[in-house]
């Protein structure tokens, strides 16, 4: 029986995408999940900030994931969890695996963008974010990450000239 999980922004601004997505509200990140209970619970644990537990459950679910879509989502979730734990290198590795399986998963690009942001690789972060935005231009998470990147990578200057 399908279950509805609201997958919102984690404290670090990441979305834990879920496996077995059947119906998706791309604006509010609502995903109706299929039957992989471990992946669903793993996503939920990541969402509430229990990253280690989320990673453990997701790894179990990953071993049981029969479809490419489920495996892609599981890798994206692991990417999100490791990025949230402050391990961007491992996060990037998982996101890259996810994208290799399913190259139109905006969440994987968005998560990897955040991981690049953590590493200070803002150009790569922008590139991934552009791909994510091309897939899902309405995702609020993308705008949030873009703002974070801009804060770190742009230097504001105000030039004034008096006319007198």
């Amino acid at each position: 029986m399908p279950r509805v999980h609201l997958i919102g922004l984690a404290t670090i601004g990441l979305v834990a995408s879920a496996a077995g997505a059947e119906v998706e509200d791309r604006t509010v990140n609502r995903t109706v999940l299929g039957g992989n209970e471990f992946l669903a619970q793993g996503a939920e644990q990541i969402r509430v900030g229990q990253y280690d537990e989320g990673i453990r459950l997701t790894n179990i679910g990953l071993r049981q994931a029969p479809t490419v879509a489920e495996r892609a989502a599981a890798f994206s979730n692991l990417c999100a969890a490791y990025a949230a734990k402050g391990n961007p290198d491992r996060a990037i590795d998982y996101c890259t695996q996810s994208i290799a399986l399913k190259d139109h998963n905006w969440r994987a690009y968005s998560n990897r963008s955040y991981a690049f942001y953590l590493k200070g690789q803002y150009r790569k972060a922008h590139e991934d974010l552009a791909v994510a935005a091309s897939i899902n231009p309405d995702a609020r998470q993308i705008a949030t990450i873009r703002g974070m990147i801009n804060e770190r990578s742009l230097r504001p200057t105000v030039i004034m000239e008096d006319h007198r």
Partner: protein
Amino acid sequence: MSATRLGLPAAVCLATAVAVAPAAARKNHPSPALDPVGTWSCIVYSHPAFGDERVLLDVARDGSVRAAHLQDGEITAWVSLTRWEIEDATLTFTDSRSGRHYAADLTRATLGGGWRTLTLVGGWWCSPADFVAAPTIDRAKPEALMPPLLPSLTATPVYPIKAIRDAKQGRAVSCFLVDADGYVVQPELVELSDEIFRAPILNALARSRYQAWPDERVLRPGCRTFIFRLDPLTGATAD
């Protein structure tokens, strides 16, 4: 000037009423609140490469406009411009020598607006001059009429965080009057690329000061251009 001269001369009132009121009624356009008749001390600004000018404008009730420049501490001879017209609360006239076509929004608190030629644009802003223009002016008066407007404290606007997040850059020009104590009064934004920059600019102007001068009756016009720019941090684009 605007408060004391709101009672427009009959001829001007009549002409304005005929020309403006029906259009205003049809299109819901604003009515002019400012009587432009009088002598004004103005700053005319443009691209930095062309510099700024201090100009005295004499807008007469008979529809004529004369201008005099301040050069080397002296006021030049008054030169006639084209006659002024008012339509939809906008005063217009042209300086045929420079080709500048001037327009002023008379719903503002003071006289000022923009000018354009075929290739250039700029702005102008005026304060009432406390004298009646004569064909020639005493050479001792210019400094009293137009004392140097020197900044003593130039506050920088805060770049809004939201603008940085949204990668918004922009440009604005604010024109204002400066009172004898050096405070900025009646600031208006005559150009504004994005509303997000309005509050920081007005806050900065409120904190800015100019050098004071003794004659409390004199308000001096000033304008300030603000450019909000975002540059990549060094090394930020390196991967």
